């Protein structure tokens, strides 16, 4: 039963990460992405997926979809229906599952829940459906398939089929905080003994509608994305996916699994100021960071690095800088901050998940991911920005994600012990 939960021990358990899969414009897999983020490589190119001749901005961080997308147990009928977003999701999920060495075919894992975040799901399928409906109103071929695959909930049910599991599927659509909300929610499920193992993460693919939307808002940088730069002029869009296997520490220990890292805190808050603009002082960002610290039992001075939401827009970075400065207080000068959107763009519903993977990479490798495009820090930044590849001694790192609609989420990770 989802409610009431079976009575048992109410004490919280530690939650470790035993599998991570990631795909971005930096490449496929942990190794290529870790090296790209460590060096601050920028991976943008001219948009090839759709016509951008009438848009202000012509570049994005397109990912290369592998020719060998892992289908796992996906039914043969479903394989040719996959859109770009679903392929990104399956690619990341396969890596995470392989790394975890968990056998999801085992009866004990058959009911493993999946918690994912996305903003646009199969929007490219929705676009294709719509164009056919307008241009050939009487055509029906493949229209039903497009409708189904447009729905994120159908795509994620497809992931469950591919993994061979039939646990609860939760799809969180909290705009650009979706990935962090999903990761945080999965953390709470394991921590509170709702499940021993949860598959979680986020995914989103570039599509004409969303690119056009951000272009219409004039939120896209006509130059390059430079988070927290005094002369920043907008964000850049990207695409990708990150999927994790979260596991209770005792479950992982019992099977001899080696954790990649640990998730220790999650906080969320809502900014009621405006649909698309943050409250200038970053009140909700401050609330989500504070809630994450309270959840982890940590003080701000114990956080060594913040992977900021840092979109590169004037309003977001100013509000986030204000929030971090207020949150850190006297320790602001000792917490390093960067935004990896400088390397791979804004991945929307996948952003929080991929940035969680970056945090785990930084903790494992003991380095800080730089944002090489940022040259002159905004005066609002009372904290050091990471502007070049830097080694560090990290125990705890925090990742922020803020979205349209005022969705704010923060998660905290710890080095594997």
């Amino acid at each position, binding site marked *: 039963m989802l409610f009431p939960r079976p009575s048992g021990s109410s004490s919280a358990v530690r939650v470790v990460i035993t599998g991570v899969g990631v795909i971005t414009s930096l490449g496929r897999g942990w190794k290529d992405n870790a090296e790209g983020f460590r060096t601050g490589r920028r991976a943008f190119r001219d948009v090839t997926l759709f016509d951008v001749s009438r848009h202000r901005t012509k570049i994005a961080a397109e990912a290369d979809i592998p020719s060998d997308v892992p289908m796992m147990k996906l039914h043969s009928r479903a394989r040719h229906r996959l859109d770009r977003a679903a392929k990104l999701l399956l690619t990341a999920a396969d890596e995470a599952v392989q790394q975890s060495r968990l056998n999801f075919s085992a009866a004990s894992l058959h009911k493993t829940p999946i918690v994912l975040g996305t903003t646009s799901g199969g929007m490219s399928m929705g676009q294709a459906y719509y164009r056919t409906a307008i241009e050939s109103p009487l055509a029906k071929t493949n229209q039903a398939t497009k409708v189904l695959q447009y729905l994120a909930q159908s795509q994620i049910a497809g992931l469950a089929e591919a993994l061979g599991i039939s646990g609860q599927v939760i799809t969180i659509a909290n705009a650009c905080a979706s990935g962090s909300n999903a990761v945080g929610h999965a953390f709470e499920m394991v921590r509170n003994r709702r499940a021993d193992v949860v598959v979680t993460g986020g995914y989103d693919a570039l599509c004409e509608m969303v690119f056009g939307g951000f272009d219409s808002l004039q939120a896209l940088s006509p130059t390059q994305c430079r988070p927290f730069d005094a002369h920043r002029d907008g964000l850049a869009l990207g695409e990708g996916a990150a999927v994790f296997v979260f596991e209770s520490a005792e479950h992982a220990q019992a099977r001899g699994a080696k954790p990649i890292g640990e998730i220790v805190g999650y906080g969320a*808050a809502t900014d009621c100021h405006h649909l698309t603009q943050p409250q200038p002082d970053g009140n909700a960002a401050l609330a989500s960071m504070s809630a994450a610290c309270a959840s982890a039992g940590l003080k701000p001075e114990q956080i060594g690095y913040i992977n900021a939401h840092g979109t590169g827009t004037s309003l977001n970075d100013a509000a986030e800088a204000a929030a971090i400065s207020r949150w850190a207080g006297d320790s602001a000068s000792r917490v390093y901050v960067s935004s990896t959107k400088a390397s791979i763009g804004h991945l929307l519903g996948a952003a929080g998940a991929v940035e969680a993977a970056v945090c785990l990479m930084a903790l494992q490798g003991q380095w800080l991911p730089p944002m090489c495009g940022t040259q002159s820090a905004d005066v609002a930044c009372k904290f050091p920005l990471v502007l070049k590849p830097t080694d560090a001694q990290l125990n705890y790192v925090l990742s922020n994600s803020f979205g349209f609609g005022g969705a704010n989420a923060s998660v905290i990770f710890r080095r594997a012990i």
Partner: protein
Amino acid sequence: MKRVFVNGIGAVSPVGWSVEALRDAVQSNQLPPNACVQRPGWAQPLACRRVPPPNPVPAVFANARLRRTTPITSFAASATLQAIADAKADPKTDRIGIVLCVLAGCVQFTRRFYHEAWHDPSTASPLVFAETVFNAPSSHVAAVLPSPAINYTLLGDSSGFLEGLALAADWLEKDLVDGCVVVGSEEIDWPILDAFHLFSPHVICSEGAGALYLSNRSVTDDAVELTAVSDPHFYSNKSQKIEATKSVRADLIQVGNAALLCDSRVGIENYDAPENATWSDWSNARLSPKTILGEGMMAGSAWQCVASVDALKQNVARSALVSISGCLHQAVGACFAKSK
């Protein structure tokens, strides 16, 4: 776990902007009139059941955040405020979480914006784009209250509304919130009708919202309580859908017998087969609000819960089962009961 009480309910449906209108329509078996929506390129319009204009217009519609929104937000905001007023909750002092559940979401502006962006992106409206985001309705609801507490928008099968109730119970258990409003809301546009036409051409779609306000504190001695939400049971074909719905019944029977069943039938034999097969021997009272109100997707599931809770409040029964054989890939059930 802590007990969870349903302290307030709200509804917007094709029969009006209140729970009373919904109750009257379901009790009287009075069908609202069908509306016609033109589908581009087709000679015949598509039938559906739309929410009539409110009379009087709710005062909240003057709120600046609701000026450019589409109906899905208006429906959600109105149902939420009804539920919160019914619960006598106070957003100024209570930490109110929001779980907004949708299947199709903000389809009107999504269709409109994509049409603009497809034909000439240089003239596409940024104001419209912002309202296409799935969590725009929950953001507006939070702003209207106002509530800075945790707020999720969940995408799912129509049965996902019940998972939203379980999520709210979790938040209450962890003391993240003092109360939580769970809302299911949908709006009609021709692509929705076209999509249903591809799969189930005889189903009449509808729009609206339903909301339940949950809290660990009861406001009356004989408050209605959420007593169970089943596991989701998945299906990928029609025979599995029947088995999934039967599994829901098996889960709910563990909670005990109920005097009232509220199911998800819409009045189309083929579409209703899983519910009919599962509950063929049910002899107690039975409600099927969607046979009157139409297939409201996530709103329809919310109406089922609102109708059940309202029936308990009206002392029609002391306990009720809600069975939802979802329209995409899963079935879920729930139980409500009078607390005393």
